[in-house]
Each structure stands twice: as C-alpha cells, then as structure tokens.
C-alpha cells in the first residue's frame, strides 16, 4: 500500500507540474490577447467605478472637490464620513414623509411592470410568429421598429403623443367626448406614461430572442409528444417552456438589469416629475449627484447600493431557477 503510493506520487506531481506550467503559459498568452480590452475597461469603467466607491465614503460635493482653473489648483477639502451616505439613503427608505420611500416603491413598480409586460408580450408575439403564416416576415420586420428607432427620437415622438393640448391621445379622447388624461401633471398617469414607453421599447428585443429560442427547439420533441397524445397545453407546458428556460433566464435577467439602470426614457419624458413621482433610484441618484446639489459622494453610494441590489437579485434568481429545475 505504502509502496504504491510512493511510486506513483512523483509521477503524478511531475505530470501535475507540467500541466500547471502549460496552463500558466496559456494564461500568459490569453492575457496578452486580452490586454487591450483590460486597459480600456480599466480606464473607462473600473477607474470611475472605484473612484465612485472612494467618494461614496466622503462628503464630496460641488463645493469641496479639487478645482483646476488654468494653472491654479484648489485642493480638495472633503472629509471621510464613513458609511453615512449609505445610512442616509437607506434610512430615507423607511421614512414615509421623505422622497426615499416612494422612490423605492416607484422603482419596484417600474421594474416589475416593465419586465412582466416585456416577457408576456414578447413570448406571446414570438409564439404567434413561430407558426407558419402569411406575411410573417413583414410582421416581424415591422415589429422591430421600436428597437430600431434611436431612443431619443422615440422619446420625442411619445412626448408629442402625450401632449395635453395637441397630443394624439388626448385629442382622440376628447373627440370621443371623454375627459383628457393629464399625462404630465397627474403623478400616477406620469408613471404610467414612462412605463408605457419603456414597455413599447423593450418588446422587440424579447420577441426576437424568444423567437430564436423557440426556433431552436428540436422538432423531434414535438413529434414525440404528438405520438404520445399530449394536448397542446401539455406540449406547451412540458416541452416549450422547459426548453425556453436557458434563454428566458438570460434575457429576463438582462432585462431587469437594463430596466433598473435605464435613465434616458425617464429623463427625456418626465424628468422624474411631477414632484419626483416618476423617479427611480437611478434617475434620483442622477439628480442628486449631477444636477444642482452635485453630491458626488452620495451619488457614488447610490451607485453601489444599486449594484448590490442587482447582484443579490442575480444570485437569488439563478438559485431559484436552478432549484426549480428538478420539477421538470
């Protein structure tokens, strides 16, 4: 027993060492190939990110950061304040009289509404487009228009549609003898309007990716299920849905991340108003960190709180899906 262990150990370690050397060489080469993107990411993304993390522990704002005026440089005078920025943001959430509580609620509504509508409409349209029908290509191409238009142009178009005096929607409502909708002054309708625009914007991406997923399901599975006499609902439930899981998981995750961090639509349509009632965490952080108060430290803290929320969500979401897998 002991002798065999002795005789094989050197050989294994030698092989091991050779393998390790090879892997090291391979890694060196890989990083050489990756060097350009690592440098770019470091300068454009990681440096600002860590700078933001650093500032989030300070009271940095417009008045105390370093200023360069030609040859004159005024040094920064901000101080470390620990995790006070984080505490003030989170304690605001539990203070019903402050903006924080309803901004958190609005963020939740914004994300849940957007991702559910994106997925449901996207899946419905993908299922219809996956069958043989006349004009299928025409439909598919025209459904891509919201994705293909520059986002700011779409925002302008919707802003025009929502106009209370001359906008298409209110003019139509009034011509039918109905009261107009106060899109920009009624807080609830304002929130509906930004969600409406973003739902409209996001459906094509969902449709296209889910259609791609549907088309890659092997037809043998459907043949087998029809031989077994499965109903269409059973086929949908036990073949289509499980086979769509990988792609559906990926794009709903991406959708939640993108929706959470979406800024331009709200910025161009409501600017977060009226009375901050269409602000999400991201747009509110922007108004705090970049608009008039310019609290850079607070802005950094917001960024990392959002990052943490999305990270936790990602972990739970992938766990949940993985544990569900045994059901099928």
């Amino acid at each position, binding site marked *: 027993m002991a002798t065999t262990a002795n005789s094989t150990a050197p050989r294994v370690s030698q092989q091991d060492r050779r393998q390790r050397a090879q892997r*090291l060489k*391979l890694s060196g080469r890989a990083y050489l*190939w*990756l060097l*350009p*993107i690592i440098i*770019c*990411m470091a300068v*454009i993304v*990681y440096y*600002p*990110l860590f*700078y933001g993390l650093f500032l989030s522990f300070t009271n940095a704002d417009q008045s105390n950061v370093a200023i360069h005026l030609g040859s004159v440089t005024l040094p920064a005078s901000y101080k470390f304040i620990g995790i006070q920025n984080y505490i003030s943001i989170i304690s605001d959430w539990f203070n019903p009289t402050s903006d924080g509580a309803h901004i958190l609620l609005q963020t939740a509504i914004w994300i849940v509404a957007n991702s559910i509508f994106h997925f449901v409409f996207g*899946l*419905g349209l993908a*299922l*219809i487009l996956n*069958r043989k*029908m006349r*004009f299928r290509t025409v*439909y598919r191409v*025209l459904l891509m*228009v919201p*994705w*293909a*238009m520059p986002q700011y*142009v779409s925002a*302008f*178009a919707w802003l*025009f549609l929502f106009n209370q*005096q001359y906008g298409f929607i209110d*003019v*139509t409502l009034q011509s039918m003898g109905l009261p107009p909708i106060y899109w920009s002054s009624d807080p609830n309708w304002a929130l509906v309007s930004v969600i409406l625009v973003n739902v*409209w914007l996001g459906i*094509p991406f969902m449709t*296209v*990716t889910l*259609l*791609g997923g549907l088309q890659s399901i092997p037809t043998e599975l*459907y043949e087998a*299920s*029809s031989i077994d006499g499965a109903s*269409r*609902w059973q*086929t949908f*439930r036990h*073949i289509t849905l499980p086979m769509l899981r*990988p792609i559906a998981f990926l794009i709903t995750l991406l959708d939640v991340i993108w929706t959470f*961090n979406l*800024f331009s639509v709200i910025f161009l349509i409501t600017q977060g108003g009226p009375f901050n009632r269409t602000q999400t965490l*991201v747009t509110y*952080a*922007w108004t705090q*960190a*970049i608009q008039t108060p310019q609290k850079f430290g607070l*802005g950094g803290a917001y960024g*990392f709180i*959002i*990052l943490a929320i999305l*990270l936790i969500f990602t972990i739970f979401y992938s766990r949940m899906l993985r544990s569900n897998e045994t059901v099928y």
Partner: protein
Amino acid sequence: MEENLTTASQAPVIIEKTRESGSKTIRNPRKVSAMFESAGAHLIMIITVILAIFPLLVILSTSFKQPADIFTTSVQLIPPHPTLDNYTHVLTDNGGIFFIWLFNSAKIAILTTILGVLLSAPAAYAVSRWNFIGKQALLLSFLVTQMFPGVLLLVPLYNLFAQFGLLDNFWGLVVAYATTALPFSVWMLKNFFDAIPKELDEAALVDGLGPFRTFWQIILPLTIPGVAVVAFFNFMAAWNEFMLAFSFLSDSHNLTLPVGIKDYVHNFGADWQYLTAASVLVTIPVLFAFLWAQRYLITGLTGGSVKS
C-alpha cells in the same frame, strides 16, 4: 408533422379558448378552428404592428405639416397641407450645420465600430478557446459592470477626460463608446467562436500555424456574420448615444446629431416641425440598416445560450 409543430406553438391562443368554451371545441372540425386561429393571429399581429410603428408614423406625418396644422385640436394623420419647408429649414439652418453634425456622427460611429471590433475579436477568441486562470472572474467582473448605473460614471469620467484634454474631442467619445460596448461585443463574438469546432484550430496547429494566424486566417473569416453583428451593434450604440455626447461636447461644430437636434427642444416646448423633420432624417438610415441586420442579430443573441 408540420401541423403538430404549429399547434404546439400556438398554445397561448388555446389557453384562452379552453377557458372560454371548454376543451371539447378544440377537437371539433380542425379546419374551422384553424381558420379562426389564423384570423385571430393576423388580427393580433396587425394591431401590434400599428402600435409598434405609430410613433414613427406620427413624427413622419408631423414633419410634413405646417405649424398651423400641428397645433390643432383635431386628429390628422395625413398632412392637410403637405410641405417640405421643415426639411429645407433643418438642412440649411445655421449655414447647413446639420451636415457637420452628420459628418461628426458618422465619423464617431465608424471609428467606434472599427475600434470595437479590433478590441473585442481577439479577446472573444481567447475567452472562447483557452481555459486560462481567472477567466470566470474576468467574465463575472464584466457582468458586474453592467449592474452599475452608467449615468453615475459620468462625473468621474468627465474629470478624467478633462485632465487629458479629451472633453470636446471625438477620440474621447470613440474610446468611451467602444469600451462600454465591450462586454456585450465580447460575449456575442464568443458565442460565434464557440459554434466553430475546436478541431479546426487543432488542425491548423498541426499544420504549423501559430495561435494568431489560426485566429486571423482560419477562424475569423468563418465568423464574418458575428463580426458584422458586433460592428453593427457598435455603430448603432455610437450613432444613437446621447448622454455622454451631451455632457462632453460643447463647441457647436463638434456636436453629434442627437445633441444638435436637441436644440429644437427648449424650455418652453419644442419646435415640433423641425424636431420631427430632423428626427426622420436621423432615423431613416439606421432603420433600414437595422432591418437589414436583424436576422444576423437573432443568431448572435441566441447562438450560445440555446443548444439545439
């Protein structure tokens, strides 16, 4: 077989029917129900298509209207007194500055495309082929950067660019656009490289080609559709970007189209006739490019995550 496939994929339509009339009706004469289903599908498609293109139709129609016809309280989708005045105004306004913005936008978008592809292709190949140390961590860190709200990077980036004199400079934007698109570009190209059998690389290696020539001469030519998708994605991102350009550019001769056009929106409202005409001019080229490229886009987006 064909029929089974279609029936399986229509499941949601069926769900509603079963709820309404019980499951017996589905098994009734197939032709009648198939006809109803097809009519229903077309109806749904037509309604969604109208909803999808309606905002575009509205700006198209407004761009041909005279101001008096825009600010009315009656619904007119077809301009009652069509005019090209809005277009001539937009194109000749301020000594034809529209063409300078167009040139700037095109220059930045093309350079972003080239840089984006040159940076992401070798990286995606390395990620696809070699199991190097720290690969998972690297990919994970790319995913994590997507979770940090981009607008909050604006201030540190502004300070950084100010130090290097890149603020009112197109190179700054080109590097920023290509880099922020990198995680997506690398992931997408990796999917395409993954689809090419590794035996090909091994054969090239046996023939005495080094890793770079294997990549450049053998594998890359096979992933031209993937490169096209990434190029297109970078182009669109740069062409449509608003916030960075809006924050960094100041000289009116350096502006890109989105920022320039924004001038038609002011504090008291907007010059809708000019804004819509300019919007149409910006949208039409990308719309056609997009509609052409979208079939490649589907394979790029789903290629890796769906196993067939």
